[in-house]
């Protein structure tokens, strides 16, 4: 056995690494607490609601896991391109178009047996999301157009597209809100837990997260991706096709955001509903930033944000404190985590 150089024990190293995160979360919560108190609400009750609603009832916990699914996929859709140094702000549109793709297949082939229909529905959502991200990817590759801008603008195009599909192509006139008719029975995701219902998408998300982790950290392609993000010029010199990799990273991100749309349709709504993308893009990007782009941390951060999100809506319901409060807290967490890095550098 080789005696390694003396290093601090494993546990304390972990604690040192966790310290800035804990500090950032605590400081952000304190700042929000001051604000909540100034507004005249009960601060402790607000904290309690935000943090513990998820763990009080089985229903609350399943709700959290159901939010975890699209949130994790959106976070990965942001994180993978970020590894290559590209900002994918188009996850919202990619999710919407993914949902449209899933719905289209689910309605057109409504009578098909589940073994065929469900995989086709999910595949359609993946392809649609990938295609939607490929457009900014191509614009970046061919014309050097800033991907932040083009991905964001594609979101606004998709808002109109989903409205068109839900009001003109397969509208459900009884719904009273832009909604399509339901997809075929065979397109629905089977349930893992029957009551309260948790669909198979949860398992699917875990599998995707593990595959992405293996891809980024254990394969040559993933290594090239990270090398591209770390120093594009050096990567180029060593023969890595930097530009192609950037585009592929965006497309892969789009595929995962698209899957988020497909899972929401096949697992939750069973039809296309305008607004089903909710605020998952915002939460996904915040999760990616809090995880500092580390794929392994993404599911854990996403779970934490899901807990906060379930708590935030409970807080809005029972205490009338607007749920946006929590988004601001999360943005603060990002800033404080970055700040802790600055402090460490000095």
């Amino acid at each position, binding site marked *: 056995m080789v005696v390694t150089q003396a290093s601090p024990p494993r546990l304390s190293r972990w604690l040192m690494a966790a310290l800035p995160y804990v500090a950032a979360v605590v400081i952000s919560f304190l700042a929000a607490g001051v604000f909540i108190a100034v507004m005249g609400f009960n601060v402790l009750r607000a904290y309690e609601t935000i943090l513990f609603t998820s763990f009080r009832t089985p229903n609350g916990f399943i709700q959290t896991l159901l939010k975890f699914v699209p949130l994790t996929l959106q976070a990965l859709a942001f994180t993978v391109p970020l590894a290559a140094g590209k900002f994918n702000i188009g996850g919202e549109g990619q999710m919407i178009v993914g949902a449209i793709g899933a719905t289209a297949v689910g309605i057109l082939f409504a009578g098909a047996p589940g073994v065929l229909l469900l995989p086709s529905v999910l595949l359609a959502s993946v392809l649609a999301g990938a295609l939607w991200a490929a457009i900014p990817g191509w*614009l970046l590759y061919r014309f050097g157009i800033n991907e932040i801008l083009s991905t964001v603008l594609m*979101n606004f195009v998709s808002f109109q597209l989903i409205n068109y599909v839900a009001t003109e192509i397969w509208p459900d006139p009884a719904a009273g809100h832009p909604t399509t008719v339901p997809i075929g029975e065979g397109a629905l995701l089977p349930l893992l837990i029957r009551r309260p219902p948790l669909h198979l998408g949860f398992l699917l998300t875990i599998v995707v997260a593990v595959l992405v982790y293996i891809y980024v950290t254990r394969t040559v392609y993933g290594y090239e991706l990270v090398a591209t993000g770390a120093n594009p010029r050096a990567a180029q010199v060593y023969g890595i096709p930097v530009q192609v990799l950037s585009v592929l990273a965006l497309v892969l991100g789009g595929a995962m955001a698209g899957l988020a749309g497909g899972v929401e349709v096949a697992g939750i709504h069973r039809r296309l509903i305008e607004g089903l993308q909710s605020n998952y893009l915002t939460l996904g990007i915040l999760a990616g930033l809090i995880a500092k782009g580390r794929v392994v941390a993404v599911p854990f951060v996403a779970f934490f944000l899901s807990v906060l999100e379930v708590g935030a809506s409970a807080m809005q319901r029972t205490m009338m404190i607007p749920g*946006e409060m929590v988004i601001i807290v999360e943005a603060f967490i990002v800033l404080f985590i970055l700040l802790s890095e600055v402090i460490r550098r000095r």
Partner: protein
Amino acid sequence: MDAQLQVITFLRLVMITLVPYVLAAQGTMLGGRTGVFSVAQEGIMLVAASVGFLAAYYLGGLLYGVLAAMLVGGIVGLLLAYFTTTLKMDQFVIGLALFFATAGFSSLAYKVAIGVTLIPPLIPTLPDVPLPVLSQLPLVGDIFFRHNVFVYLAIVLSLVLYVLLYRTGIGLELRAVGESPLAADSLGVNVTLMRYVTTVVGGMLMGLAGVYLPMAYTGTFTEDIVRGRGWLSIALTFFGGWNPHFILLGAFFFAGVEVLAFRAQVTNVGIPYQFLLMLPYLATILVMIPGFRWARVPAFLGRNYDREKRAQV
């Protein structure tokens, strides 16, 4: 409606519509010209629209709203300047974090102050101020010289910025900071101060762009009031090649597409309205293709200058 009147109405609407684009894009350009690339426009416009509206509503005067919007825009600009210029953090990450924080704060502030109401609270919209003599001119008078003060402000500001950047010593120094801060620094230009001032003033202009929306269009604040105009302004900045005068010209195009999409929707041209509403975004993506080719982007855009560091590229 006869053709002449239609053209006049169209051009009048374009003049009114270009204001937020011009203000937000000039703000973006100003910060970018010293190297600070903001991506928080959409959020700043939202929070300025919300806070500005509330100030005007509760204090009973549009001027209070305008001042509040400039204040809140300036504060966000100051934060961006501090995090990037002083702490040297990644400009895009900070910009995104500020975008989310401000966007969240905009609806939070409105909900806390107003709550949910059946009838939205209203403020008076900006009155038209016809310019003496000029507004009497045939055609031109109606199109250009009978507007609210923001329209004049947007035009005059663009011209002032052009003169400032290209005809004064300060402008030369300012542009140098965005091209080569090392060279500017060695010649005694205060790089840090330059970056702070342009980013704060840029934030104020974005704030004005935001508060214009409730004051000129709706008379109230809604969560979807900005509708991507902040992001479109970044595209306009590139389209205008990071030059104040070309940004003003480009804004006519951006505003023209928006008015066209809106009017085509009203007059029912047979195309589903959803596709008309996509137009501004699709047109923007298209014009970015030549835009990104010819734009002379400030060389140091998006980067942070550290005078203590040895290797400066």
